[in-house]
């Protein structure tokens, strides 16, 4: 499943770049993220509690950041599994200056979802994934503006 999108955040690029690499900011912005602990350089262990309607599940997973080109882009790889199924994928996150200040954050992700949730929830997966991505970038924007 491919997911693409972009969000504009009215904060200078250098600050946005720092925030998108800050585990505490990421933890607060990732929907349902309860824990995000560093396990190495740019490697984290994550616990996500995700609930959509009656489907609730806890996912344990790993996040790895690579190909960092400050303050332009990096690659984030995610894998996790839990009761309802598993998620594996990666996304390139790119930052660009907006005219008149601010930063455009674009993502281009390739995500695989498997297990029970993929078989039964197929019709909703694309929409729910997009909604969660929107929530994440929206929250990052809020946190950055609150800090500014």
């Amino acid at each position: 499943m491919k997911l693409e999108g972009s969000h504009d955040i009215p904060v200078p690029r250098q600050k946005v770049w720092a925030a998108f690499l800050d585990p505490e900011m990421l933890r607060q912005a990732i929907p349902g993220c309860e824990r995000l602990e560093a396990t190495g350089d740019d490697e984290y262990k994550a616990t996500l509690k995700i609930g959509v309607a009656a489907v609730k599940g806890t996912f344990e997973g790993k996040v790895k950041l690579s190909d960092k080109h400050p303050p332009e882009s990096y690659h984030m790889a995610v894998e996790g599994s839990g009761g309802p199924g598993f998620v594996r994928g990666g996304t390139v996150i790119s930052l660009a200056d907006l005219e008149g200040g601010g930063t455009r954050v674009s993502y281009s992700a390739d995500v695989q979802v498997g297990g029970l949730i993929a078989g039964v929830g197929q019709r909703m997966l694309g929409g729910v994934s997009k909604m969660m991505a929107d929530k994440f970038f929206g929250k990052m924007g809020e946190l950055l503006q609150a800090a500014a």
Partner: protein
Amino acid sequence: MKPAVFEYVRPASLDEALDVLHQRGDDAKVLAGGQSLVPMMNFRLARPAVLVDLNGLGDLAFIRPAADGLAVGAMTRQRTIEKSAVVRERAPLLAEATPLIGHLPIRTRGTVGGSLVHADPAAEYPAVMVALDAEFTLARKGATRRVPAGEFFDTYLSTTIRPDEILTEIRLPGTSPQAGAAFVEISRRHGDFALVAAGAVVDVDGAGRIGGARIALGGVGPRPVRARTAEGMLVGQRPTAALLAEAAATVMPETDPPEDIHASAEYRREMSAVFTRRALAAALARAGVQV
């Protein structure tokens, strides 16, 4: 497939049901017709600790004329709505949409309230309620509140209902007796969830101008989409094919459709205009105006 272990409660009164939710709301799920929840439990995707079965609450199943509109109990079966003469008379859009829900056995068991709280964005009832400006009564222990349909649906399978609340009643304001209503949808097979669904209610005044128009769509975003721009373009105008097409095209940028194996987002967006136009033309035809 068998569900995971759960505790089963079958309250004999609404108060008793609200008591259980007051104490255990976060771990509980309310069972209405069970046409979505039970399969999800059998797949073990949903694992509620407590199931609160409302099927013993006969007083939540009713269809009553109210003011110039209609009051419908949340536990009313979809099949009962489908066969109701008073629904056909007072809420023709609801009557039009009902036969498109699933299949006969699903409608025989499925309830109007269950479909609304489940909030599948491709389901028929959420779009109907948003088009008609319905109002939902939500009860919890010691209190009730009313929420307009337009503020009820949040996102995929999510609403603003609290875990300790039960949807008890749906109020539908009356529509003009001269109005025509139509609900049209496209799905891969009959009975499947719609790729795109559109409902319209239109009335035409004595001078041949559109007096009022209500349009809502399902399947094209995380929640039903009310096509207010299109409605605004129609009111006060003489209906022509060109006007309908122009108004219908305005819904496309207001949609945020999902993409899956059945259809691309682009296709769904395109169809949102096509089906809005068809719903409008069919509604106008029923109001006595051929376009």
